[in-house]
């Protein structure tokens, strides 16, 4: 087990609370018609991005998904610039050209959300190839993907190469049980998606994706292994998609009560006290204060986003090419 200090544990909670507050704010504002496009929320899955990114260095790289706000925050993005992007403003991370589904922050190694499900495997694996075989540095890359994305053929091509060449890439499967409206059991025969890792001669581990310490522990080991040049790891984090596929999804394919029961039983924030490693303790009041601070921080991020201008119309033509 990786040792965690109380300060680290506090930071985990703070990151998860920030993601939760961010997502709740985005949901509210999207439903109020203030945000264009589509948004996909990470509520209930916060422990995964938080635990994984906590094991990474600032110069390590992540490939995110359309459900990527949590990854972005966990990797260290500024929530003001993130929120401005989601509102389509010129001061957003991508100057209003990407939005929620195409958010990136290269300064912190967040190589982008991806609007194409399963589009990130090859990018992350290529980034790992560049680190190990071309630029000869020890940067690690991570690709997040859902159970839906695990059925893309791109997974096979990337996983095979990553294992064959022992590339420093970590495959993080957020097993949230739903591919949009389709439950994974109707499309997938394996019990654990990570069972497939065996086929690539890659370690495959299952962790409780609601337990940030367990996720962090697996990530620390996978990162160390990648940096030692021993190749990729497949981490399957069991979680559940609490929100609809997108905000506004009528969710006619499942029972709301069942989802809320799962959320009640597994919410990584409300169950935090119960999973603390030995020797670490918090008062509930401390945690409540962290959550209140996160809500306040996100409230300011929203105010910032609203106060920013939209890009000048003339900007539509910039950034197509470098030269």
């Amino acid at each position, binding site marked *: 087990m990786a040792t965690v200090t109380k300060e680290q544990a506090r930071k985990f909670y703070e990151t998860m609370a920030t993601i939760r507050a961010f997502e709740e704010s985005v949901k509210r504002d999207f439903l109020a018609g203030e945000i264009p496009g589509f948004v996909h929320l990470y509520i209930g899955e916060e422990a995964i991005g938080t635990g994984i990114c906590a094991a990474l260095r600032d110069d390590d790289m992540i490939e995110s998904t359309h459900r990527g706000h949590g990854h972005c925050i966990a990797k260290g993005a500024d929530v003001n610039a993130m929120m401005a992007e989601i509102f389509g403003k010129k001061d957003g991370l991508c100057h209003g050209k990407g939005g929620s589904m195409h958010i990136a922050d290269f300064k912190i190694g967040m190589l982008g959300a991806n609007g*194409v499900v399963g589009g990130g495997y090859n990018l992350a694996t290529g980034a790992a190839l*560049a*680190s190990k075989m*071309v630029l000869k540095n020890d940067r690690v890359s991570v690709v997040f993907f859902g159970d839906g994305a695990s059925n893309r053929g*791109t997974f096979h091509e990337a996983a095979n190469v990553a294992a064959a060449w022992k590339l420093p890439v970590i495959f993080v499967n957020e097993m949230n049980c739903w591919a949009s409206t389709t439950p994974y059991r109707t499309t997938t025969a394996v019990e654990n998606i990570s069972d497939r890792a065996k086929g690539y001669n890659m370690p495959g581990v299952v962790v409780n994706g609601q337990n940030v310490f367990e996720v962090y522990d697996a990530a620390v080991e996978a990162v160390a292994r990648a940096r030692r040049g021993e190749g990729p790891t497949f981490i399957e984090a069991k979680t559940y998609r609490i929100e609809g596929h997108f905000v506004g999804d009528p969710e006619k394919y499942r029972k709301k009560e069942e989802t809320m029961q799962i959320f009640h039983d597994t919410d990584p924030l409300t169950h935090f006290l119960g999973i603390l490693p030995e020797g670490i303790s918090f008062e509930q009041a401390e945690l409540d204060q962290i959550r209140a601070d996160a809500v306040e921080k996100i409230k300011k991020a929203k105010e910032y986003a609203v106060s920013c201008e939209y890009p000048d119309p003339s900007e539509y033509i910039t950034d197509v090419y470098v*030269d």
Partner: protein
Amino acid sequence: MRKITFSEATREAMAEEMEKYPEVFVMGEDIARQGGIFGQFKGLPDEFPGRVIDTPISETFIVGGGVGAALAGARPVVDMHFADFIGVCGDEIINQMAKIRYMFGGQAKIPLVLRAPDGMAGGGAAQHSQSLESFFIHIPGIKVVAPSNPYDAKMVLKAAIECDDPVLYFENKVLYKETGEVPEKEDEVPYVIGKARVEREGTDVTIVSYSIGMKNARAAADLLEKDGIKAEVIDLITLSPWDKETVINSVKKTHRLCLVAESVKQGGALAEVAATVAEEALEYLDAPVLRYGAPFTPIPFAPTLEKMYRVYPEDLVNGIKGVL
């Protein structure tokens, strides 16, 4: 001046760029041990150990991995084996490579070259003979080049590798074996992506082509000259962004336009040239635009059928004479 083949010219370009930039590497199927299916990578793996990489047969990785490597700071060249296999990695080109810079607000650059050997090489039939360049001029965010001779093959490839934007480099399989004059390195003139070349000046008709289509353009100009007709021949070299100015200036002079390529005529890259001339220089045209390309069928196998798929210089000559 020394003469080398198109294939050798591309190899020289690779070697010079790999020497110059340690972050340049190349990956693809059968390029290291075999030296490329057309021999275009021969010798490179010995010169640059570890930087010429044989991949599994995984086109989405070859291209997507190249894009990821570029995002991490490398300058990748990826080889498609046959241009036809681009079909396997459509997402990696269309939704990733072409979009990343724009949708992330200019944070990233993708200095990647995708090399795609194309064209009919005799019996390759439907899945090993296509010229697919025209698809990609419809996609903003990538550049498309298709040189027609060894010197351009070298200079365009060097320019593509040095370019900070993704470039699709279409190289014709028949042209690989053709020789041409290529100056020594110190006498080279760098190519600027986006520039066409007036290869032959003339006053009666403008013939525009690229890649192997240039063989038809040159041969037709030779035949026309025997009858006293002076054709101006323009090699587009870059299809996106293409050199509108050079073409329109020529049409203003000759008042006639003839377009020829090996690829399928319908929706071809040169249709864009025809449409632009119609939009911006119609008043200078004294005759309808002539356009030659392959019929709207997959490429057949049998020699008797493949023959029907090709354009011949005489087709251009007859057409041009009909509008003079």
